[in-house]
């Protein structure tokens, strides 16, 4: 086992090159990851990227083909699900339909040597925790979607796990309820100090919830970091596109000017910051410059390009513009409204650009 870095405490969870294949398909490919105690991590990726399989490996429903999973320094790799100090909240909630809410909550507490009254007291505590006092006698099918979600959460917390796994915990809720529940989930996690690993395909949800986000693509963990790092300094085009809208301008690496690099493109020369992934790149290598729409500016200045405004849409909180460039590519720019008293009209020739530090050069 590699020694933990001196400035980090012993991680709660340590995955070391965990691999799992189904037939010829590598669902999880050599994933290594540390989780600090009390940390909230989101695994983000499109469906089929392996994030749910990784969660099932942590819960013990699948056994890795290679690699180790350690929790609090203890090797979990061969342990069956019912022996792991880990609990899971299922995407479908998996509430027992033939049991009342209270019986569902008590299920994980039975067989631990607690007295009947201790279990009843704990169940009441859990109902209070998720604000469902008085619902103990109900059957799950007599609850609303949001209430069921809270029962599933409370049931997964009943055994006070060191690590809680949540598979698309808010996926079945409607939009308004989801935003409210995000806040509650975050507050609950801070209060309990339990390590949370959440699987989601919704980047906004991952950014709203997590201390760190792990992006998965075709079984590999491609980048792990705080939301800001992933959004502003993505490691690849895939990560850049996954976390939000991005303009990608193709070109070739031309020269290094100070900390900036210069890229030759069809639209003219562009100066931008090179990502770490380009450390070994040579001049003339194909690259893309990634710029977020909200970083685009109009008028003379750095990286001023030439184009025609083809669409301007008022979206309430911002203005979204589309600019067709000379080579036919369309760049998107979005601006919060106060700066936009009198903007250009559709059909006008305008000059979109961006500050060099707002452009991020990635391998093509």
């Amino acid at each position: 086992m590699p020694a933990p870095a001196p400035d980090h405490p012993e991680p709660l969870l340590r995955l070391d090159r965990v691999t799992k294949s189904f037939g010829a398909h590598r669902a999880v490919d050599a994933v290594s990851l540390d989780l600090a105690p009390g940390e909230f991590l989101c695994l983000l990726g499109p469906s089929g990227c392996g994030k749910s399989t990784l969660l099932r490996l942590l819960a013990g429903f699948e056994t890795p083909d290679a690699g180790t999973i350690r929790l609090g320094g203890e090797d979990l790799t061969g342990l069956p699900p019912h022996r792991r100090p880990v609990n899971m909240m299922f995407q479908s909630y998996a509430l027992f339909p033939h049991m009342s809410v209270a019986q569902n909550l008590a299920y994980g507490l039975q067989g631990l040597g607690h007295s009947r009254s201790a279990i009843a007291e704990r169940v009441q505590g859990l109902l209070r925790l998720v604000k469902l006092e008085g619902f103990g006698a109900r059957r799950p099918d007599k609850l609303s979607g949001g209430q069921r979600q809270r029962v599933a959460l409370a049931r997964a917390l009943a055994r006070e796990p060191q690590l809680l796994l949540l598979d698309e915990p808010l996926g079945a809720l409607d939009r308004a309820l989801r935003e409210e529940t995000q806040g509650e989930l975050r507050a609950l996690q801070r209060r309990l100090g339990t390590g949370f690993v959440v699987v989601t395909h919704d980047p906004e949800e991952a950014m709203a919830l997590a201390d760190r986000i792990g992006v998965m693509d075709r079984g590999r963990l491609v980048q792990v970091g705080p939301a800001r790092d992933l959004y502003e300094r993505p490691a690849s085009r895939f990560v850049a596109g996954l976390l939000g809208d991005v303009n990608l301008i193709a070109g070739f690496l031309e020269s290094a000017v100070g900390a900036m690099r210069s890229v030759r493109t069809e639209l003219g020369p562009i100066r931008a910051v090179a990502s770490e992934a380009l450390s070994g790149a040579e001049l003339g290598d194909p690259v893309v410059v990634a710029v977020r729409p909200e970083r685009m500016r109009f008028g003379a200045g750095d990286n001023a390009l030439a184009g025609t405004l083809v669409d301007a849409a008022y979206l309430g909180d911002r203005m979204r513009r589309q600019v067709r460039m000379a080579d036919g590519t369309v760049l998107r720019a979005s601006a919060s409204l106060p700066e936009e008293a009198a903007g250009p009209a559709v059909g006008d020739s305008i000059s979109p650009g961006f500050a060099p530090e707002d452009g991020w050069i990635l391998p093509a």
Partner: protein
Amino acid sequence: MDPPGMRRVGSPLGRWLVRAPPLLWLGLFFLVPFVITLKISFSLPATAQPPYRPVLDWSDGIAGWRAFFEGLELTNYAMLAADSLYWKATLSSLAYAAGATAILVLIGTPMALAMARASVRIQPLLVALVVVPFWTSFLIRVYAWIAILKPEGLLNAALLKLGVVAQPLTILDTPLAVMIGLTYAYLPFVVLPLYAVMSRLDTTLPEAAADLGASRARIFRTVTLPLAMPGLVAGALLCFIPMVGEFIIPDLLGGSETLMLGRMLWIEFFSNRDWPIASAVAVLLLILIVVPVVLFRGAEERREEALR
């Protein structure tokens, strides 16, 4: 009354066109024969054609009807109650059916569970294997058991060869042979409904139970079995009901000593040519079977109500 949430569709004529064939079928082939049997059970045997009295004489009009109803008697039911032979046959039929149902549930539950847990690709094959015996006549399959169980049969030959027994075992014409026959013949009826329920169980429920610390045994007892209970009860009834009246298996495998209502019925009808008492036995059999079904339906409905 229509169940809530279902709307009536189509014209009244269309609805009746759909309802008429099954109603007609049930009326002609169930209700009419049942009324005839019921009537004969209140008659007295006679050396005549048909072999009972009274027979309704349509030509006498009202007087004929009156004579007919005055001729009906409860004698046969009094005989059923008085003669211990019928009581013994009733109790032994119920005991055979209950015992075989218990064994079938014990064998069928793990079978159905294993089928439901098998990989999705081989499940159709497993279902086909359970159904395949139905392609051969039931009678022939029971005859085959005679060849297996008789003293010089396949089973004894194998046991003697292996040195497990020194003398051939007497299995044929014993209650054991009847139990073997019942268990063999009715296994698909308990496996298929159970499999149907178990294969549709949400697979995340056992996983959630395991995640909450439950062992395999506890998962089965607290999650799988309660959720599969409707299939289990349906399968058990599907076996129990026909087994109470079973005739072929006790007749072929049980020998002349076996007392079961199905055999009594056959003997009274065909050997003794006593149609009235045979009809009374048939009505008794019907009551024995209908009562548990009605009780079960009632319990099911109360359970549904409680969940609502």
